[in-house]
């Protein structure tokens, strides 16, 4: 399946991926409104150190441990798209997925709602917002490489 891959050699650490993630998941789809009047936790995790950074999203694992561990059934892998998504209405904020995700790619909602925030590959427009708006192509939306490639 197609996923977002980070290329740390080109990551600027500008965090625009966060900005566009928030915007993409807003009601308004407007950068300013999304940030000023909506409360959205970006699903991107940015690791940055000295001269090195990269953005990380849910890897949408084939055999996703978070889906297996989810105690409410909120976390499911869509059999058609392969996207691991969660049902906000079912999530109770038990953080079992956070305990389970080996990438640390699931976040707690930053506005103290007892729900999580994670990448849903918002690809309605053909490409997830983080990758589509990465100014340096440090995030690319592409097919997963086969083993050994």
């Amino acid at each position, binding site marked *: 399946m197609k996923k977002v891959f980070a290329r740390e050699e080109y990551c600027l650490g500008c*965090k*625009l991926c966060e900005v566009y993630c928030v915007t993409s998941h807003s009601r308004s789809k407007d950068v300013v409104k999304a940030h000023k009047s909506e409360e959205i936790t970006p699903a991107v995790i940015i690791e940055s150190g000295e001269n090195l950074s990269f953005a990380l999203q849910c890897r949408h694992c084939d055999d996703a441990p978070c889906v297996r561990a989810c105690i409410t059934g909120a976390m499911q892998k869509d059999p058609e798209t392969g996207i691991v998504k969660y049902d906000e209405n079912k999530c109770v904020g038990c953080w079992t997925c956070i305990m389970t995700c080996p990438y640390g790619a699931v976040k707690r909602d930053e506005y103290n709602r007892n729900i999580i925030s994670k990448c849903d590959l918002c690809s309605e427009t053909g490409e997830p917002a983080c990758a589509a708006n990465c100014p340096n192509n440090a995030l690319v939306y592409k097919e997963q490489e086969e083993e050994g490639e």
Partner: protein
Amino acid sequence: MSLSLKNPEFLIERNYDRCINCQVCERQCANDSHYYDEEMDKMLSKDENCVNCQRCVTLCPANALSIRQYPLEYRKNSNWTGEMINNIYKQAESGGVLLTGMGNPTPKKIYWDHILLNASQVTNPSIDPLREPMELKTFLGRKPGKLEFDENGNPFPLPPQLELDTPIMFSAMSFGSISINACRSLARAATASGIMYNTGEGGLHQDLYQYKENTIVQVASGRFGVHQEYLEAGAAIEIKIGQGAKPGIGGHLPGEKVGDEVSRTRMIPLGTDALSPAPHHDIYSIEDLRQLIYALKEATDYTKPVSVKISAVHNVAAIATGIATAGADIISIDGYRGGTGAAPTLIRDNVGIPIELALAAVDERLRREGLRDQVSLVIGGTIRNSADIVKAIALGADTVYIASAALIAMGCHMCQKCYTGKCNWGIATQQPDLVKRLNPEIGEERLKNLIRGWSLEIKEMLGGMGINAIESLRGNRLMLRGIDLNERELAVLGIKHAGE
């Protein structure tokens, strides 16, 4: 001196209704012009640090930023303009030479803009490049005045030629003055576009040896990074005598830009200034040049054309003739408006002559000497668009060098701060975090697009003239007319005035 008289040059304007405090501007500014104030929960700016590179403006996702000239109005004075006054403040504080970057920004006459092109109407058909072949292939290198055939009817082999798919090349920009990612972008785009890029005088990074077929390696007075393997790593060799932005002086790379890789590539100690001598100390005359040309040819077994690059200076036509007779296969002339990287301000703005006039004079002189069809002529120095290229070729060039345009395609915003090494666009810098900002894949793509777009436009213009091969444009000055030019200018350019 506790009080600096220097004023900010630019004013950062932030629309707080739009600013979302994402701090992208702060993270993207190598000059620390933006910062987040926690107490005020607001982004603030330090105008005095701003160089107007537009990085923050471009990346701001909320379109909350704009940058303006700082509204500093000295009393009106045509002699003592604000720029003059500010320069004096700078020098009164530094005691140094005024430095700047990129080409000449002063409002001197741009002859390209006074030359107009022809198009076919009725008596011959214009050609539609979308439907008909339109040929831009160009060969650079020495050609025999006349072709001879052996007893089997095969022509005797020609001296080595560079084959270009379109009459554009990326001009010399050294690794050191520009980043490795900028070099990669240029090399890959040249390869993909079937043209050449030029290493400049900084040697050749190991990663770039693979682009050999599309590389011109430069040999300049500093001889940085020049060795046998380097000479063999290009399709052609260029001896740099001068460059448009700073005729008469050598390239200066400040020690701050001489990091690990640059030091290894140039074969100089880490952190030392790389100062090229003003002249080549083995070339004090035309016969010395001849020796160097043939030394390089010998070293590479006559397999590569040798180019000699000079600045356009007053007696450029005679010098060019001398270069042709000294054995150069390609003559490259750089006009005084051109320039990338760093240069002393006053030299850049006051030394040399416009490339249009230099080109016209050189082409005419070489023809008069019967040499023009034997030697190739490349010009550069503010080629800003495809029409400039068409005009240059019609005036007599074989092909053009572009450098500023290439940098701009890669993201340069002409802030003229190349000499600081803090290029926010990842181009004229060696700082790893900044270098990273230019993804060579994107750089390549943008350059390829530029070359493609310009080539399409050249084809359109050729087609309009009823020509379907670029060689029929070369030196075809009847395709040009001047406007707002006096008799002398028209005579030097060898063109008629519009309406004639």
